[in-house]
């Protein structure tokens, strides 16, 4: 793992790591860096599709609940409206759509990120607590097919980092 001072340095280094053919990599930063997605070759997440499915499910559950209530289980005439009074059913169905889509967005994000995960080997690096403050870190994992301890370490030293650390497991 290598430490950097600025966004520009870490992004440039990440591009070099990608171009050298490493795939099992990660970067850590105190705030999102948009350029990093491209620099590390991160694929676009499937999250938006999940959120869409969540929203559609919410809509169907909302409408289904009201249909079941007013047409099947407890048909009762209120104000001369038909049993299935769609315009009046829009607000609850709409709110259910938003609710389920939002839940999917948040919990889907946490699930895809593999969180909660209170312990992770990177936390063993003493200086890593600066990743949530001001420093930027670049990691090459040892299960990368191109990983070789000495070569990779030498390669990382060449990236002009502040320092290179080993991550204990």
């Amino acid at each position, binding site marked *: 793992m290598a430490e950097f001072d*600025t*966004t*520009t340095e870490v992004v*440039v280094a*990440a*591009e070099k790591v990608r171009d050298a053919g490493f795939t099992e990599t*990660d*970067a*850590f*930063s*105190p*705030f*999102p*860096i*948009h*350029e*990093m*997605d*491209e*620099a590390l070759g*991160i694929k676009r*997440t499937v*999250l*938006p599709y999940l*959120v869409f499915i969540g929203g559609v499910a919410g809509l169907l559950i909302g409408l289904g*609940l009201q249909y079941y*209530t*007013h047409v099947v289980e*407890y048909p009762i005439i*209120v104000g001369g*409206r038909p049993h299935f*009074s769609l315009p009046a*059913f829009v*607000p*609850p169905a709409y*709110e*259910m759509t*938003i*609710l389920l*889509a*939002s*839940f999917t*967005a*948040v919990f889907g*994000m946490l699930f*895809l*990120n593999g*969180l*909660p*995960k*209170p*312990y*992770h080997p*990177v*936390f063993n690096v003493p200086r890593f607590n*600066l*990743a*949530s*403050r*001001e420093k930027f870190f670049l990691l090459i994992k040892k299960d990368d097919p191109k990983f070789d301890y000495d070569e990779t370490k030498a390669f990382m030293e060449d990236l002009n980092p502040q320092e290179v650390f080993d991550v204990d497991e």
Partner: protein
Amino acid sequence: MEELKRVQERINPPMVEGHHDYASVTDKISDITLKKRTPFGWFIGFGIAFLLAQLLLMTVTLLFAQGVGIWGNNQPVGWAFPIINFVWWIGIGHAGTLISAILLLLNQKWRTSINRFAEAMTLFAVACAGMFPILHTGRPWLAYWMLPYPNTMGMWQNFRSPLMWDVFAVTTYALVSLLFWYVGLIPDIATLRDRANNKYFKFVYGLLSWGWRGSARHWHRYELAYLLLAGLSTPLVLSVHSIVSFDFSVAQLPGWHATIFPPYFVAGAIFAGFAMVLILCIPLRAWYNLKDLITDTHLSYMGKIMLATGLIVVYGYAAEAFFAWYSAAEYEVFMMRNRMISGPYWWSYWLLIFCNGVSIQFLWFKRFRESSFWLFVISVIVSVGMWLERFVIIVTSLHRDFLPSSWGMFAPTIFDWTMYLGTIGFFFALIFLFVRMLPVISIFEVRTLLPDAKVDRHGHDHDHDGTGSVGS
């Protein structure tokens, strides 16, 4: 060059003033929770708010023991204070999501310094709002009857009723606001975890941050999730107060039955919400010395939004009067005359026009917009005005029924007031606790505002292959 720079600063004023880097903004915000001694004023403020919250507890205890008869609610004014306060609080609760969602989608960078505590304000205001309709039912221990579940009574809810829509809208709003707030907090709680010296705090913040480590892959999904939440909250925030306004406008009562209600209520909610954000952030930035982060520019922008939404609200008042006249319906005409001139509550209408219509006109002038004192004063007046607006809508419409035989008057009792004051205390007590325990400003988003945060390739002799910036 100097000239050019000045013009640029006018168009695009810096959102972080002073000389700051990632570490200094981090320290500035997180030290409030971790390092600094709690200021004496905090204890005084929290103490007063906490005492007022006890007033709420006592009133609710009495309410449970004796029933809604302790309030001034009567026939024909059955809604009275509980619903006035419900609508007032839920209106205040709208600015938070507006700031975090709509301004995010509009790429308004100035939202960054104020969104966190505006969202907290939203949550606490919605918590206060939620209490009122439940207690107003008279048998609050049966409030779960509003949820659709198969029950032994064999009964189901009537989904054609706006009151049922309210249940769905307010519940959804509360939950989604909570999620939005919490998702924004995760990276900042991780910062607190990494900076806390006390091992218990470290443990608690560690749990709350879900093990966030700032991985690029995580940030990628995080930003998308945040953007999607903003996209989902935007129609939500507009729908919630529209649905609250349906509680009124779907009824046939003159003074309630108007098509202008949904947009006029939404504008009023944002208006009241920004007033409350200003009431909170002006003392906050002074006491905690946050003027570099919440600058005068921020206050001035909020003043402008208050002016714009306030003018929409005034348009709503004018439209109501116009409808009454143009409809030529005798009950409508009577209601409006009674509300403005001949009725016993005429003073509340003109006080409302003063608070919401006249006082905001000062915001046209830069002098008032850039003075935190005047902004604070105007915000307090507006908060009172927005409460009066709901008083006018509810009480003056109800107290003159269609038949003169069912006319009546409304006078609040002491318990109406203690309950209202009690929720104000509860609200501020929660705000004080929030300021003490969590970062009041979104740290990671402020970091992105710093000039260093931009990736600058020009300084490097790197043969870049056209991989420009990627928006996600």
